């Protein structure tokens, strides 16, 4: 047992290194002075820290880039689109669908279909979605991206919440029906509040997915707020000033801004994932 624990620990350290090093690299690059960004061998522990990458445009080979703080109009779009597709995916589709599938339509094939849909790469549908969103006149609009993103937030929420709903003791809902609640009231007054940890996880994962999405945003949007719906991952690409030339400092600084919500939410979701899922209503 002890040997296995040590082995797992080493494995975890290696994985953590792979996961965390890029984040560390982005953060230190964002805080480095220009002279320490372009060195070989690279500087792992910067000697000087500066915030200038956040507000001054970088210059590479004479070309002037944008600034990290200039991402504000893109951030607005990202926030609205990610929030809307996360909340709609969770509350309007995911939770009711998951509840219906665990309580009424106990059809495994439907559940498997949802899982199957989640396994298909999102980009596989890019042409049909392009056609649909064009036909709907929603190119370069919030709703265009929101609709597309719901197509992957909703299945994830449904799948996730099915597990949470099936963990609720049936008798609590039966008690509600005896207390006189309708099926719908039982769902939203009793069942839904009992899966709040699942709802939180669903909102956060959906938000992060939508926030980070790149391909659809690239294809379906072309200008930032207020004229269009371009999201913040696209802003990052604009740090490529001319071909093969990157404004590294500004890119890293903007990268930090973009990563921040995902990291904070990720840490927050972890608390809910780890937390016990039943809440002591029932004495078994």
């Amino acid at each position: 047992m002890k040997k296995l624990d040590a082995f797992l620990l080493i494995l975890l350290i290696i994985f953590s290194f792979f996961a965390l090093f890029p984040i560390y690299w982005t953060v230190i690059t964002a805080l480095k002075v220009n002279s320490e960004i372009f060195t070989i061998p690279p500087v792992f522990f910067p000697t000087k820290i500066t915030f200038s990458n956040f507000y001054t445009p970088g210059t590479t080979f004479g070309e002037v880039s944008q600034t990290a703080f200039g991402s504000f109009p893109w951030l607005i779009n990202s926030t609205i689109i990610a929030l809307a597709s996360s909340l709609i995916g969770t509350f309007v589709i995911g939770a009711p669908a998951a509840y219906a599938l665990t309580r009424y339509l106990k059809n495994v094939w439907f559940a498997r279909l949802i899982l199957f849909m989640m396994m298909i790469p999102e980009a596989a549908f890019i042409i049909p979605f392009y056609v649909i969103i064009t036909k709907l006149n929603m190119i370069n609009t919030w709703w265009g991206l929101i609709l597309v993103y719901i197509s992957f937030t909703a299945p994830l929420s449904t799948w996730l919440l099915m597990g949470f709903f099936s963990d609720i003791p049936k008798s609590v809902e039966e008690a509600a029906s005896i207390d006189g609640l309708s099926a719908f009231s039982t769902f939203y007054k009793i069942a839904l509040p009992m899966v709040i940890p699942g709802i939180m996880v669903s909102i956060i994962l959906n938000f992060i997915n939508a926030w980070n999405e790149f391909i659809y945003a690239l294809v379906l949007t072309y200008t930032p707020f207020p004229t269009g719906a371009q999201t913040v991952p696209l802003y990052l690409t604009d740090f490529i000033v001319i071909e093969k030339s990157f404004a590294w400092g500004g890119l890293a600084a903007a990268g930090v801004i973009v990563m921040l919500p995902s990291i904070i939410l990720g840490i927050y979701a972890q608390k809910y994932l780890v937390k016990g899922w039943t809440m002591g209503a029932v004495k078994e």
Partner: protein
Amino acid sequence: MDNGGSEGIMSEVIVENVTKKFGNFVALDNVNLTIKPKEFFVLLGPSGSGKTTLLRLIAGLEDITEGSIYIGGKKVNDVPPKDRNVAMVFQNYALYPHFNVFDNIALTLKVRGYSKDAIKSRVSEIAKILHIEDILNKKPRELSGGQQQRVALARALVREPSVFLLDEPLSNLDAKLRVEARSFLRSLQKEVGVTTVFVTHDQSEAMALATTIAVLDKGIIKQVGDPYELYTKPKDIFTAGFIGSPAMNMIPGKLVKDGSSWRFVSEDFSVQLINTEFENEYDVILGIRPEHITLVKDDGINAKINNVEPMGAVTYLDIQVGSVELTVQYTGLIKLEAGMEIKVKFVEEKMLFYDRKTEKLLNV
């Protein structure tokens, strides 16, 4: 309690030819019961006998396969639980974990459109009766088992239901609390006067609470009667063995006509019967309760003591009579030891004879 338009406080429950199947499995087999208004009716049976299923059918939580159920004279087969005006206490209490105690109790009143003031006064009234006034702001998970049970009772009692259904509500309590809760429940039910169906597998609980007991085994109602009847004249071997603790002694033997009187003959002894008559000679099982075996000086059946268990008010003796071991209850303490030889006698009026084939009581 003030009575807010409770249509069914005097409700009678009639279960008529009810059969419940889960797939091919018959959980309840042609059950017929009449539960009178205000009665404390106990469904008694071992685990898996179908008690919960029957309660759930009355509540409307399961569909009836065949037959009908009437509550307060109205057929309710197709009435959903929320419209049956029954209240139920689940075995696991099933409290709403995200509501505090007050809201747990108040929800049903809110749904029924009571005013804020009415809700407040009713909840505090029932909370006082159940001694939970101090915990109204706590969440279920912060409560002890006994408190959770009382909250579950309060939730059921806060409105006056037509029928009060309780599924082994005391089984999670420790022994002392359970005995307290019994007498409390009994007096509460008298006070509120709601028709009550109480499920338990514990025969002593049934005896202590019931005005009427129905004994259920493998989905079949074996006997319905008051506790006295069930204890003194159990109609079949199952009921005889199930009711009473320690259990009734069962001795296989034969009823033989001996001149003008009858005789019970077992492998190891025989007993002359003076006042009992039968139609035929039968293979029987003699049932005799431990308190109906007496110790005698002479002219008795020879027995050897296997074990002595002094309880204070009574002493239990395990005795060996030939190949059968019997339990004897002696009133008071007695100085006896394992290994001693004694003589015993059966009280004839208390001897119950069951046909070995039909397992039915032969005494009239």
